[in-house]
C-alpha cells in the first residue's frame, strides 16, 4: 500500500488539529512525494526545527514510504493571519 495525499491529510488532521492544511502531491510518478502547508496552534512557542520535527513524527508511519517531503509552511494561526493580511495588502 502506497501513501496517498488523503492519507497524509487525515493523519495530520487527527494529530495536529490544523486550522489550515494543504497537502500537494509532487510525485509526478516517481513515488510518494508531498509538499505541505500547515497551520496549527500546536506550533505556538516552538522554533521552526521543533515544528518540522512535530510534523515528521506525526507522519512517522508514512515517512517509511514517503520518497520526499517538503514542509513549505508550519505556522501558528496568528502568523498565518499576518501572512494572509500582508499578501492581500500587496495584491490590492
Amino acid at each position, binding site marked *: 500500500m502506497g501513501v496517498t495525499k488523503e492519507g497524509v491529510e487525515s493523519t495530520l488532521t487527527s494529530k495536529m488539529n490544523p486550522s489550515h492544511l494543504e497537502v500537494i502531491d509532487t510525485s509526478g510518478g516517481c513515488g510518494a512525494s508531498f509538499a505541505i502547508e500547515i497551520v496549527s496552534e500546536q506550533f505556538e512557542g516552538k522554533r*521552526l*526545527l521543533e515544528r*518540522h*520535527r512535530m510534523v*515528521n513524527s506525526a507522519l*512517522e508511519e508514512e*515517512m517509511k514510504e514517503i520518497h*520526499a*517531503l*517538503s*514542509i*513549505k509552511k508550519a505556522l501558528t494561526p496568528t502568523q498565518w493571519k499576518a501572512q494572509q493580511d500582508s499578501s492581500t495588502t500587496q495584491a490590492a
Partner: protein
Amino acid sequence: SFRCFSALNPALKSTLDKVVTSNKVVLFMKGNKDFPQCGFSNTVVQILKSLDVPFETLDILENELLRQALKEYSNWPTFPQLYIDGQFFGGCDITVEAYKSGELQESLERAMCS
C-alpha cells in the same frame, strides 16, 4: 537472545559526535558538493556556496549504516542534514527558510567566530 534493530550503537554514536564536530559546517547529503545527486541536497550546497562558507560534505548514499544511524542521531528522517558547530540545524526546507530570514548567516557567523 535479543536482536537490536537500532543502527545507532554507542560506538557509532561516539564516531558521529566526532564527525559532526570535525568541521564547523558539515552536510550529510546525497552525492557530494561537486556532484549532488538530489535536488534537495543540491539546494543546500548552493546556499552554502553562495555564502562562501567552508563546509565538508559526506555522501550518505555510500554508507547505508551511516544513513540509518544518522536518522536516529539527528532524530530527522530525511537528507540532506546540515550541522553547524556540532548542532543539527535542519534539512532543506529549514535551511532555505533560515537563509531567507538571515538566521542561517547569523548561525554561520557565530560558528565561524566561536
